């Protein structure tokens, strides 16, 4: 019998550690401790969990650590089930398929100062970035970690606190920090990032509204809800490789239409932030609603989970 295609990186749960209240830190390794596919600082991976769940988590170890993927997961009882599956079902020794790492941070020698703002468990991507910047000896970077009281992942933060790279803000004692004041003035050679709850991100986006776009980066916990478009119209998707055509109802997502038709597209966040469902488009006028593609990429690709069409017919490279 022919084996099914291998579509994920095979990993084994090597360790599960306590990362603070409601948080577990999972270390994933290759079964033979082989090197894992490399990743950039701040990159994320999809975990393919029992029950068909696919969930995205930031890697929080140094990319120089080539044999481990470390993720920190907060149990969200009201979430979509991924964190509960990890907390309640996964044990050391379990096999988990993961995607190739995506996204992350490209080192830029023109950046002289980095400043990051993280809310709660949103500190995870900056653990990876800070470990990288520390290792390469970058002289000026700061992570502002904001939490109500007890800081999550204190065990992972400790080395960076010792290096005075992390400033802790406990809102129960000092109130919410002024994000604009933490960031300082926009200056050439300064880059900023934020990962946290939506309110914090909105504050961050207001504070950096005048900054050059390529100097600002935002990571979201969950995809923002798309506004319902009262003027949404139906359109047709044409699949260039099979020649099939399928209708997309007014207000229906392109992804849902493809899935109804039996077209399997890898997905994860379903909100235009993770990059899993990138598909090429060939003709028509797509409406891009993602938060991940660059203007250049949008000339060739779209994210089927959130994209729409401003033309009656859109041809996809599927």
């Amino acid at each position, binding site marked *: 019998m*022919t084996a099914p295609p291998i579509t*994920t*990186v095979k990993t084994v749960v090597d360790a599960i550690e306590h990362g603070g209240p409601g948080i577990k830190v999972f270390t994933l390794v290759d079964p033979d401790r082989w*090197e894992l596919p490399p990743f950039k600082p701040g990159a994320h991976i999809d975990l393919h969990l029992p029950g068909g769940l696919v969930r995205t988590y930031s890697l929080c170890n140094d990319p120089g650590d080539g044999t481990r993927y470390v993720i920190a997961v907060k149990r969200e009882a009201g979430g979509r089930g991924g964190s509960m599956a990890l907390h309640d079902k996964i044990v050391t020794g379990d096999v988990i398929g993961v995607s*190739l790492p995506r996204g992350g941070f490209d080192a830029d020698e023109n950046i002289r100062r980095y400043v990051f703002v993280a809310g709660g468990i949103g500190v995870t991507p900056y653990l990876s970035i800070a470990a990288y910047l520390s290792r390469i000896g970058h002289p000026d970077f700061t992570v502002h970690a904001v939490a109500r009281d007890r800081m999550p992942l204190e065990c992972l933060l400790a080395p960076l606190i010792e290096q005075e790279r992390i400033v802790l803000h406990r809102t129960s004692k000092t109130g919410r920090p002024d994000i604009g004041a933490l960031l300082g003035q926009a200056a050439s050679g300064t880059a900023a990032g934020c990962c946290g709850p939506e309110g914090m991100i909105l504050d961050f986006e207001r504070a950096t509204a005048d900054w050059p776009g390529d100097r600002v980066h935002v990571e979201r916990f969950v995809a923002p809800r798309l506004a319902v478009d009262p003027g949404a119209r139906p359109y047709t998707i044409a699949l260039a490789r099979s020649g099939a055509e399928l209708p997309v109802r007014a207000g229906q997502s392109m992804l849902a239409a493809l899935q109804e038709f039996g077209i399997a597209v890898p997905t994860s966040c379903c909100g235009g932030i993770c990059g899993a469902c990138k598909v090429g488009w060939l003709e028509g006028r797509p409406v891009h609603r993602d938060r991940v593609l660059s203007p250049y990429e949008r000339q060739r690709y779209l994210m089927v989970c959130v994209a729409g069409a401003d033309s009656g017919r859109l041809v996809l490279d599927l």
Partner: protein
Amino acid sequence: MLDRPVADPATAPAKSAWTGFVRFLHITPRAFLPMRSVPTVTLMAGKGIEGDRYMIGREEGFYSHKPEEGRQVTLFELETLVALKRDARIELGPAEHRRNVTVEGVPLNHLVDRRFWLGETLLEATRLSIPCRHIEEITGKAIFDPLINRSGLNCRILKGGVVKVGDVVRNDT
């Protein structure tokens, strides 16, 4: 029209006009994982390379769901890596093309259906390798088009043995 060489391969004088060398050896145990550079590999006749994902019976490669008896070991020309840099300005390392053996001075595209020696092992070339998007996905480098018609060679192992970096590659005369 030309479905076989014009000259009889058994008597063509150019048959042994080349001698090449093994420059790099790489294996990996599973799909997606980085290839690891090793000084020697052990080829098992009729099976594959010890520890590699495409060893027959192991079946842990990205294309293992498409079994191929003639894909026991794969080769790639060092000259192609030089050409990629020269012509397409793409730096691709010998660990990135995901073939097992990087050779220099061996006209791989001429060897389909021929037998040749890789160190002490005897191989039979079964077909040209073809480029794949999988390598683009892993490397993030747009190498699909530049590798068309020069993506290496698939071979079956007729006589096994240990192959070392620096070994001679020669025709089976």
